[in-house]
């Protein structure tokens, strides 16, 4: 690729941003990394393109795949010197999932998160099942039951619709 200084550099950056914008989450491929809110920035200096991502959960095993996917997709478009950096601050919040991402989740039968709780002081104990205003992403019924606060990936809870009887995933608020 050409790495001349001047306007061409910015064109490259714009091109890189477009490539990066298409990379999807390995666990929820209906979402791009940008829609999920884990993509925190794309920048470059004279030699290296730097992409910054943040983990959704500390133990998220998809981070390595995201890094690989970013590097490979960019390499396919001629960006050879790519560095993927991790950002831990600010911590990821489900509030960062874009409107487009929320629609994509619903279109694929996954319930999108409500507003994340604010945890500035001590987190209050909650011994009752968490109350969420949800509707079934398949039939739209508000008659839903929480099966478990933990699901197939770190970021999801499991629900069951008592209307259509189908189980569905809900992306948790954090």
């Amino acid at each position, binding site marked *: 690729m050409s790495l001349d200084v001047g306007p061409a550099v910015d064109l490259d950056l714009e091109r890189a941003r477009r490539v990066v914008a298409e990379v999807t989450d*390995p666990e929820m491929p209906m979402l791009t990394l940008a829609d999920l809110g884990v993509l925190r920035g794309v920048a470059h200096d004279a030699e290296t393109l*730097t992409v*910054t991502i943040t*983990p959704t*959960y*500390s*133990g*998220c*095993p998809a*981070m*390595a*795949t995201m*890094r*690989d*996917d970013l590097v*490979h997709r960019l390499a396919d478009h001629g960006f050879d010197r790519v*560095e*993927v*950096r*991790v*950002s*831990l*601050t*600010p*911590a*990821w919040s489900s509030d960062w999932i874009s409107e487009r991402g929320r629609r994509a989740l619903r279109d694929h039968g996954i319930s999108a998160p409500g507003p994340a709780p604010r*945890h500035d*002081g*001590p*987190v209050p*104990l*909650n*011994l*009752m*099942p*968490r109350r969420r205003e949800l509707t079934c992403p398949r039939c739209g019924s508000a008659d839903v039951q929480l*099966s*478990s*606060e*933990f*699901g*197939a990936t*770190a970021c999801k809870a*499991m629900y069951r619709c008592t209307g259509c009887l189908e189980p569905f995933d809900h992306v*948790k608020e*954090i």
Partner: protein
Amino acid sequence: MPHVHDHDADHESVYDGLTGGDDSQWAFGTDFEDPLAGVDTTIAQGVDASALAAYCLMLGDDALVYSHRLAQWTSNAPDLEDDIALANIALDLLGQARLLLARAAAADPAVVPALPDGSPVPPEDALAFFRDEAGFRNVRLVEPDNGDFAVTMARLLVFSTYRLALLERLRDSNDPVLAAIATKGVKEVAYHRDYAGRWFLTLARGTEESRRRLLAGLALVWPLYDELFRTHHVEAAAADQGFGVDPSGLADEVGVVLEQVLTTSGVERPEIAQTGAVNGQTGRGGRHTEVMGRLLAEMQVVARAHPMGLW
């Protein structure tokens, strides 16, 4: 089976294809990368690097050892939902452990066990899999066998209440990496504590048998409770220097939260003799319970058999 780097081998390894060239065909990354890549690991002024590393090992080892224990429930829990819940909780803790051990290694590389030249094992793995028992700094509460589901819920309630209180304060650490790990961890552990709290209540007010088992579980867990709030000199230094938390200051807060759960559940706080220090040392000082050696043997055996392994 790991791919072993053996540059002197005169035969071609069937695994070469896994690590060389284009690995985009593999679902998951085939090589390790620094979990703190790009994170500023500069140490704040007035912070002693070796104390910071020692402190990170303590919090990292709590998470690592407990993660290993909880992961033993996988495929064994009473139902699928709880199997998945316990595996998820173990995964969150493993993620916290990885970041904390990587932070320890970055702060003071001298804490990382030496491996053969050219070993591809990253520092946080070297700390997890190549340290001996006395090098571990976790509290002893996280070591015992899981016991039945009621014992596990009693221990998870105590541990996650303690860890949540600790991480809430650690968000103000003057070490930006610790502060970031804590901020993230608070969100995760809040879910763990509520999960354990609900099961505690359910078992306490369920059947006679579930209540009997829960009370027995709490009695089993309780002797290692006071140790959580005993200040080791590294923790005192961590609090003095502004990067860590003195656990003695958490006792009231943790007690209040547990009291809420116990009262709602109609359970008395146990009055049980505490397991003392051994020659003045507890888990934070590297003195562990009898089961710790077996736990580490199981956790470490495969990694230790392949010090040149690439996973």
